[in-house]
């Protein structure tokens, strides 16, 4: 058993490696709290990709053209792939995909709050791509330089695909913004509903963010919530204006002194309400994941049973 002194030496060496820009790999020693922080963050990230398939996936059968249907199919397929990379990276920290997924189904693990908002129109599919994936990129590009190697490497690949989705989402909204008056109204209505939830994707303000300090010291988080939120707003507002749409924030203004857009007050009460499970879709999202899992049980059992028969060889198969 490690003595306190020994543990302190290990932690010091660990912090030196991180400060020196070295990557931490699965077989390396790491503080338990580092492992747990990453497990929580990566599981939440993987679940978000998986749950995130639902609001967009529900529009596949209703996509208004065959090419948009194909784009959307390819996108949700990418998201399932992202969940797969992230669950694999998570397994390198000693938490199996099934354990992590069990925590989601039991309601013990979180996923991105924004997927508890409903996708009510076709324009929402564009907003999810343009705004939500845009926010995800701002969040995730720094993560491709985070201190844990498997997570950093997964993020490199994920970010490439996410940037593609982001452009597709923008293109979808642009088509609506340049379309008939009814299509423009559809786009503006969707923007009104998705703007604030997206701004909240970056999490609570810095002064209220409990894990931030430690995560930054460990190189798991490279920029603060508010820094990333500002970056997103600065890059997205000009895109909104370019489309001739309006940001649903009367207090939004450009500050020529700082070179940044300043936004109005964020309704953190709503944020907390949705996180607590009181959003429009929290119950439905979880119920949907549980239903698929339960209804697929006979399939997974049959696959395991068949694999066991094969492993036992022809003799075993006859006896079975």
């Amino acid at each position, binding site marked *: 058993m490690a003595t306190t002194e020994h543990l302190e030496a290990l932690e010091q060496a660990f912090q030196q490696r991180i400060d020196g820009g070295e990557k931490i790999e699965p077989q390396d020693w790491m503080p338990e709290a580092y492992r747990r922080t990453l497990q929580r963050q990566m599981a939440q990230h993987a679940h978000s990709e*998986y749950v995130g398939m639902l609001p967009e996936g529900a529009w596949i059968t209703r996509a208004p053209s065959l090419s948009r249907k194909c784009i959307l199919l390819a996108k949700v397929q990418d998201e399932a792939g992202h969940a797969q990379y992230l669950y694999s990276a998570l397994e390198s920290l000693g938490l199996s995909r099934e354990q992590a997924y069990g925590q989601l189904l039991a309601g013990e693990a979180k996923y991105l709050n924004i997927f508890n908002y409903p996708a009510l129109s076709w324009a929402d599919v564009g907003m999810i791509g343009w705004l939500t994936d845009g926010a995800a990129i701002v969040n995730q590009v720094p993560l491709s330089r985070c201190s844990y190697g498997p997570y950093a490497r997964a993020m490199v690949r994920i970010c490439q695909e996410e940037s593609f989705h982001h452009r597709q989402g923008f293109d979808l909204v642009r088509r609506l913004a340049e379309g008939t008056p009814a299509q423009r109204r559809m786009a503006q209505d969707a923007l009104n509903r998705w703007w604030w939830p997206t701004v909240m994707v970056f999490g609570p303000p810095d002064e209220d963010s409990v894990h931030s300090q430690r995560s930054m010291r460990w190189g798991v988080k490279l920029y603060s919530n508010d820094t990333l939120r500002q970056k997103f707003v600065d890059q997205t507002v000009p895109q909104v204006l370019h489309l001739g749409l309006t940001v649903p924030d009367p207090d939004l203004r450009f500050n020529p002194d700082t070179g940044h857009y300043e936004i109005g007050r964020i309704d953190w009460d709503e944020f907390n309400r949705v996180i607590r499970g009181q959003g429009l879709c929290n119950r439905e999202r979880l119920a949907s994941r549980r239903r698929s899992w339960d209804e697929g*049980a006979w399939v997974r059992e049959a696959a395991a049973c068949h694999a066991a028969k094969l492993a036992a060889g022809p003799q075993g198969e006859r006896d079975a």
Partner: protein
Amino acid sequence: MLVQTQPPATADLIEYALRLGDNTLLLGQRLGEWCGHAPELEDDIALSNIALDLIGQSRLLLSLAGEWEGRGRDEDALAYLRDAPAFRNLTLLELPNGDFGQTVLRIALFSAYQVAVWRALRGGGEARLAAIAGKALAESRYHLRYAAEWVVRLGDGTDESRRRMQRALTHWWPYLAEMFDEDALERRLDGVAPQAALLRKEWEALMLPVLAEATLRPPADTEYRSGGKRGEHSESLGHVLAEMQFLQRAYPGGRW
């Protein structure tokens, strides 16, 4: 090419291309319903992958039909602005998915047929269809492999999975007759469209060993009134189209 310069033959070709394109459109649409609901992430990926291939094939075939028709209808006009009686797909492909086993079984049954169809069209006398078939054949082989592996796993899995798969086979079986039910149009397209007898032979060579390995017994053939190719469909098609077409219908004239 002879068939392309004679107007009646061209009308037949348009009709035939619509049959092919509507088949893949309807199954692609059905598989799109699975998104996010499969038993495992891997199957979510596989089913959306197959759906994407099928819709991709439809786009090529419907575009070709529209081009041959020369009335300015593109792939979207054909997919979104025709009503049920104008659709030419096999009835098999418009019916509800059922459970995962029923879904993969339908993919296997249809993909084996598609492999035979594409092979014949690839070597047939119509250059545009042959080019599409060349691309689609590789995709259908992949679909068949994925689905056939699941049919075997589930058929030769637990008692419950075998029972479900035998029931699924009995459910789909009567609709297979339509695949091999050669009509006057297909006979007129001799040299382009494959003969039914050939298709049946190739389909059986691909499918029967899979069913045998899955320990599933093909039911006896039953009488079935085949109508999908002529636009006489089941009650399911109207529901599929209502969902698929609503945006185009509700916002006429929009570009998307």
